[in-house]
């Protein structure tokens, strides 16, 4: 059986969720491995959520926010960047491949990019295989 990774995606309400929505209404194809959760801002995603996702069976976590300068809350995405980078460092130390956590900036017109990133991440995770628990 082919390994199908589970990706949990946290999408910001103002840009990335709209981007994912656009991918849907434009009928761009992307793998069904992604489970989106809409959050008001990408900086709402705490490392606690990311750790819990991995602990409860996610193979990858994808955080998406507005492009630099576009944050609806002025500077939320800058905090997200630092938070995700620190979390990646911690994941690496604890023995989880930091590639399993991905941060991308996706605007509301980038449906193509959303589909592209999900496709890329699914491929990558398929190659990495399931997390050894």
């Amino acid at each position, binding site marked *: 059986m082919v390994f199908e990774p589970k990706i949990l995606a946290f999408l910001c309400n103002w840009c990335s969720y709209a981007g994912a929505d656009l991918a849907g209404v434009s009928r761009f194809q992307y793998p069904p491995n992604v489970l989106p959760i809409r959050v008001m801002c990408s900086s709402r995603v705490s*490392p606690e959520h990311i750790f819990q996702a991995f602990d409860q069976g996610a193979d990858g976590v994808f955080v998406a926010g507005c492009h*630099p300068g576009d944050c609806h809350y002025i*500077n939320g995405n*800058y*905090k997200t*960047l630092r938070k995700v980078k620190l*979390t990646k*460092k911690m994941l690496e*130390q604890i023995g989880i491949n930091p590639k399993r956590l991905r941060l991308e900036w996706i605007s509301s017109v980038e449906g193509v990019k959303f589909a592209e990133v999900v496709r890329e991440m699914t491929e990558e995770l398929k190659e990495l295989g399931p997390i*050894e628990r």
Partner: protein
Amino acid sequence: MKPKLAFYWCASCGGCEVAILDLNEALLDLVEKADIVFWPCAMDFKRSDVEKMGDNHIDFSFINGAIRTSEDVEMADLLRKKSKHVVAFGSCSCFGGIPGLANLSSKKEMLERIYDTESTEERAVFPSVKFEFDGEILTLPEFLDEAKPLEEVIKVDYFIPGCPPQTEQTLEALDSLLNGRSDKKVFASAKSVCEECPRQKEDKKLSTIKRIYEIQDDGRCLLEQGIPCLGPATAGGCGARCVKANYPCTGCNGPTQEAIDQGARMIASLASALGIEDEEKMEEKKVDELIDEIIDPVGTFYKFSLPKSILKKRWRDLDKSKTIGGRS
């Protein structure tokens, strides 16, 4: 009748036992109000003494130290059976503590490091659980795969965190427990250490991470001066002692009540406090440089709480990717 108390240590340094002795004169009041029926560290008691007691004979068992060997599990089970209430005393017992950082290595790695490296005279002689010598069988407790907080092996009624618990915290807990006024389950503040910290906050972004010797102490918030101080993610109740003595909080009182995970909460706080000038231009390289200044995030942010955290121990995912395909 006087209530009966027991004190026992599992994988601990002995500091928690000293913390009991540190009650000083209050210890004399304690023995007047209660009988100590088991305290192997300070008085001559044997395990068989506890085994002879009836069930629920002890009123409060204070157990400190993490659960590391099979003996710790057996003693915890025994004391649970013989006690009405069990109190996890100290950070190791509450969250796994410093011995819990060993969860970053496997049992095999640890034993190999100790018994099979250049520093060992006779290589690869590992301790065994059972050994026959002169017709006698000698036994040793088994070293378990990981360090655990007490709560993972038995039911715990009360928690007194701290490394070691502050005298005031211990006295408050003893007073309310012995008088049956135990309205608290965790004897730490519901608020963070920052609430008790007298230092001045200016809501300043920190642009670099520093070590304690690199700053001039002028009463300003240590975190804002660039020291990774765990105050925001740590429960108060200690009176911010370390911070008052110009030393950053290292998190021994465990996570605040609303935090699920101390280290994760600290990353979130630090990520908000960290800032580079002109962050709008977002040079990723600069952000990377700033993050790289934090050398050991797990050791710093989970110093006392790794076994109680969400991820608990080292995962084997990266080791696998090193051997297959070499992607890491």
